[in-house]
């Protein structure tokens, strides 16, 4: 299959072990309004899954249920075998293993870049100060921002801030990364610098769930595409299948709107 050819490096990872993220019948309501209905999907280790769909379709809500930032009322989610909705699950401990990148970066404005990356290493992973700094500088180098470590977030461009946010998440050595519209708040000329970092990450075998409208990224990097509409997963297929012959009318409609410009 095409998918296997493009991702040779990842195959051995894919084969070993069960799914990294398992969602089964996940439903969520805000009062009477259902935002997620019966969502079921798996993300294997090393797999890159792009979640797309019209705004308000529940895609952001869906990935936020994975690390328990959004509670859900029905169904189960397991990350690396640990049930997210289970009351006995220590959510902070689980979240420390799952990196998340937000639409609005959410760097801590009162801390320098390196302090942003050090904080959770020190307080959550109990790493020593030197180790945390070394790891932080290393990761900043990886996203091309080693020289910015002592600046404050407000002194950086949006694209730079988002790359720092990715480095901050990576510093926790996550087993999977969640991206919630990572380029939606960026000026067009900065989108690629962030997508490039994400592409590198995917190549290195990171397990990723990415909510995005960047269909070019999906075509290049994704293994699978999930299309959501009105809180439900409408399509869940390989990217070739998705971009080749979208079956549903809604997905077709969505693609035709988003790919024309």
């Amino acid at each position, binding site marked *: 299959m095409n998918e296997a050819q493009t991702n040779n490096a990842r195959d051995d990872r894919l084969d070993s072990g069960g799914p990294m993220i398992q969602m089964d019948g996940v439903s969520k309501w805000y009062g009477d309004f259902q935002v997620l209905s019966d969502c079921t999907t798996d993300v294997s280790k090393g797999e890159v899954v792009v979640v797309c769909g019209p705004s308000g379709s529940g895609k952001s809500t869906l990935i936020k249920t994975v690390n328990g*930032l959004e509670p859900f009322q029905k169904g189960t989610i397991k990350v690396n075998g640990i049930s997210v909705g289970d009351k006995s699950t220590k959510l*902070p401990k689980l*979240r420390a293993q*799952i990196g*998340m990148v*937000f639409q609005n970066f959410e760097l*801590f404005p009162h801390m320098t870049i390196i302090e942003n990356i050090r*904080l959770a290493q020190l307080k959550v992973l109990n790493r020593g100060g030197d180790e945390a700094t070394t790891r932080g500088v290393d990761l900043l180098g990886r996203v091309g921002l080693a020289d910015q470590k002592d600046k404050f977030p407000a002194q950086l461009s949006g694209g730079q801030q988002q790359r720092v946010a990715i480095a901050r*998440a990576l510093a926790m050595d996550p087993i999977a990364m969640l991206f919630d519209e990572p380029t939606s708040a960026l000026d067009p000329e900065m989108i690629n610098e962030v997508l490039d970092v994400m592409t590198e990450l995917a190549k290195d075998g990171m397990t990723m769930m990415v909510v995005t409208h960047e269909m070019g990224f999906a075509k290049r990097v994704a293994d699978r595409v999930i299309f959501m509409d009105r809180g439900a997963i409408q399509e869940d297929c390989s990217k070739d299948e998705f971009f080749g012959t979208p079956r549903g009318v809604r997905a077709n409609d969505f693609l035709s709107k988003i790919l024309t410009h």
Partner: protein
Amino acid sequence: METGFDFEIVRESIPFLAEGLVLTFQLTLLGVLGGLVLGTLLALARLAPFKPLSFAAATYVNFFRSLPLILVIFWFYFLVPLLLGREVGAFFSVMVAFILFEAAYYCEIMRAGIQSVKKGQLAAGSALGLTYAQNMRYIVLPQAFRAMIPILLNQGVILFQDTSLVYVVGLGDFLVHADIVANRDNRLIEMYTTVAIVYFAFCLLGQFLIRNLQRKYAT
């Protein structure tokens, strides 16, 4: 009756006045710090998801904000020794009164500050694995505090003026010491004018500080 103004008396009584001013500053500083710490805890309680806790904090705040400060000073002057079962002195009673009273106002300021921190910040902290307490300590409170510095200082300036109410329990603050000299030498106008100028100068300095900080932290 003396005629004409004689400000020489002010110069002569500087050590005695300074002694009073030190007490005024002590009361202000302890009131601000104690009130801020207790007020921050109250604000956290008020915003806690556990309803009885937030209700208790709200009740506390509404209660103290409904009382005149002078009443609280009086009241605690008699109440604190009774509660502790021993004499504690006017200074201690007044301190307790100031801290408890100011905490109600600082609570509301810090609550506004905490609510001004973007919700996404909390999500980002949580996503990194920080606990609720760590989120508050490292992410939310530092930002809330920065955002509220001008208002917090403003509240401090108000307290600086309000400490003069301690005369009702016989504590010798700046105003009381000036008053003693004024009455002893019958130099009321001179002493009260001096007191007014000193209060004005310190408050002006405070306002200046606030304006500068406002500019610095304006986002």
